[in-house]
């Protein structure tokens, strides 16, 4: 029987929920942050045969350490293949990538994502209030992965009626719009937030609330969203992460590098602490090849 964790952070909950969007037979493209952790957790728990693909070119790595980005050295530790970025994106455009998991900073009800710039009141693309990183591979994943999962925090002003810049296409203007634009993938299938899980209506393509996390409130969620959010008639409360999931996360990410437990607080670890912590985490995790 599953044992649920009692002590967990909301980032860990998000990573756990996100990991369950990955199936054992998926070939999964995972982006930086929580998606990276979701991929690692899925592979270590319910989806041992999943092939995780990283944008830099790593395929099916099996490592004692956690990738911190989509192109660092763990992405090819004991990998099935180590190849080029253009190659894995071509493979995605050909249809070999069954699921892509990406983050966002601003989203609308059709799942269109902005990670390029928040223009602000008198701002523009070239002179925005907040410059963001840009697409990275997110546009390509949102365009061509067979399905996509979006991960982002539910904060006021981020779930908007119209994003300033469509970096990564969701359903664009609604039903039929992706097909008309010529996009290959089926579009977003879920949005994992820090309060609940959202899905998309197959007819209207509109995002709706599918489930909430323990202790969360539907009305509070609706207040954080600019449009008139629809809620599933079968709304349910999701299970917390399992102890197994939490153990995996903390073993792989002892310093909270990926899930931000420390960097959010702005702490800088002394080099020797860093070194010893990594050494210890390697020893704690044997890999069978």
């Amino acid at each position, binding site marked *: 029987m599953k044992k649920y964790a009692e002590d967990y952070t909301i980032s860990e909950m998000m990573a756990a929920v996100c990991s369950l969007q990955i199936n054992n037979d998926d070939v999964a493209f995972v982006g*930086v942050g929580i998606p990276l952790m979701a991929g690692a957790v899925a592979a270590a728990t319910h989806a041992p045969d999943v092939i995780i693909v*990283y944008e*830099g*070119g*790593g395929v099916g790595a099996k*490592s*004692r350490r956690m990738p911190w*980005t*989509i*192109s*660092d*050295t*763990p*992405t*090819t*530790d004991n990998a099935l293949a*180590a*190849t*080029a*970025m*253009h190659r894995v*994106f071509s493979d995605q*455009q050909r249809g070999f990538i069954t699921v892509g998991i990406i983050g966002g900073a601003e989203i609308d009800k059709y799942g269109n994502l902005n990670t*390029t710039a928040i223009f602000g009141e008198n701002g523009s*693309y*070239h*002179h925005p*209030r*907040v*410059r963001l*990183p*840009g*697409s*990275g*591979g997110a*546009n*390509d994943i949102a*365009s*061509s992965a067979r399905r996509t999962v979006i991960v982002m925090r539910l904060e006021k002003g981020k779930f908007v009626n119209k994003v300033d*810049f*469509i*970096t*990564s*296409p969701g359903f*664009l203007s609604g039903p039929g719009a992706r097909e008309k*634009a*010529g*996009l*290959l993938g089926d579009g977003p299938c879920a949005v994992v937030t820090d309060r609940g899980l959202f899905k998309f209506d197959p007819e209207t393509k509109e995002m709706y609330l599918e489930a909430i996390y323990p202790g969360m409130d539907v009305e509070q969620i609706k207040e954080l969203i600019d449009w008139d959010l629809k809620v599933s008639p079968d709304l349910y409360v999701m299970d917390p992460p399992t102890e197994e999931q939490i153990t995996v996360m903390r073993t792989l990410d002892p310093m909270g*590098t990926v899930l931000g437990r420390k*960097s959010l607080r*702005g702490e*800088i*670890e002394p*080099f020797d602490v*860093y*070194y010893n912590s*990594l*050494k210890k985490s*390697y020893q704690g995790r044997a890999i069978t090849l």
Partner: protein
Amino acid sequence: MKDKRMTLKEAVAKFTWDGCTLNIGSICAREPMAVAHEIIRQGRKNITFITDTTSDPAELLVAAGCFSRIEAAYIWIGVVGQGYNIRRAVEEGIPNHIEIEPYSNYTAGLRLMAGAMGVPFLPTKSLLGSDILTYNPKIKVIDDPYGSGPVALIPAANPDTTFIHVQRADMAGNCQIWGMLGNDDYAARAAKNVVITCEEIVPTSEIRKIPNMTVIPEYVVSAVVELPFGCHPLSVTGCYWMDNPFRQEFIKASRTREGILAWMDEWVFGVENHEQYLDKVGRDRLAKLQELEQDNCMIPEIIWRTREGM
């Protein structure tokens, strides 16, 4: 066989100039920080930077005012924080405004691939419906003459110079790369000048033991620079792991303009060359980073043999 070895100082002096178009290969792993330091020390300005995704080196070059324009998919510091320097440049024009031509990782790779293949463009089904098309006038959408509907044409890029860091190369520039390749195979072929920086220059006979591992052949290479630990504080597969505490200090300094100027005074202008930088980082620390990587991955030994033992 041509001997293309030179120092980093010589290579940057010869192959970069004010107003050039520049690419620096790879992402996070094998992204040569030492190249950024030397370009800054040589005071290059008005560079157009062409890349896919870029992290610490670009942040520093932006802070130093070397760039006037970036054509890229992603400009940020990953893992440990955000891109304070690129934000300051775009949002406040400090030290100078930078115009960003947007791409995605795939299409940023396709323009290098087109440049490398000697064709004017490559087609894709990425970007359709997105605002990357709105703000990137170079990309044309046509109706596929074969009937698949809209297709975006990504025009070729041929940067003046690319710097690519690899694990090993011979003195003529035959390069073998371990781990993910990013878009480096095509980036090298797209550029007009290619400077290889490498952890180790090896005899050509080592290269010949496993020719399938050669990603970049000598006929595309202009110069070869031996530059061990050339990516610190970033990582190189099989060689050394990331120095995140160092990067955290860099990001902390980047929060303010004064902070990053002081950081550059100390770490870029405060040393004369990469050797001095490494001394300042500390050889013990570098050895530990090497150990952290090599606990997990080392470049394998290739035992090449024939029945006759040729």
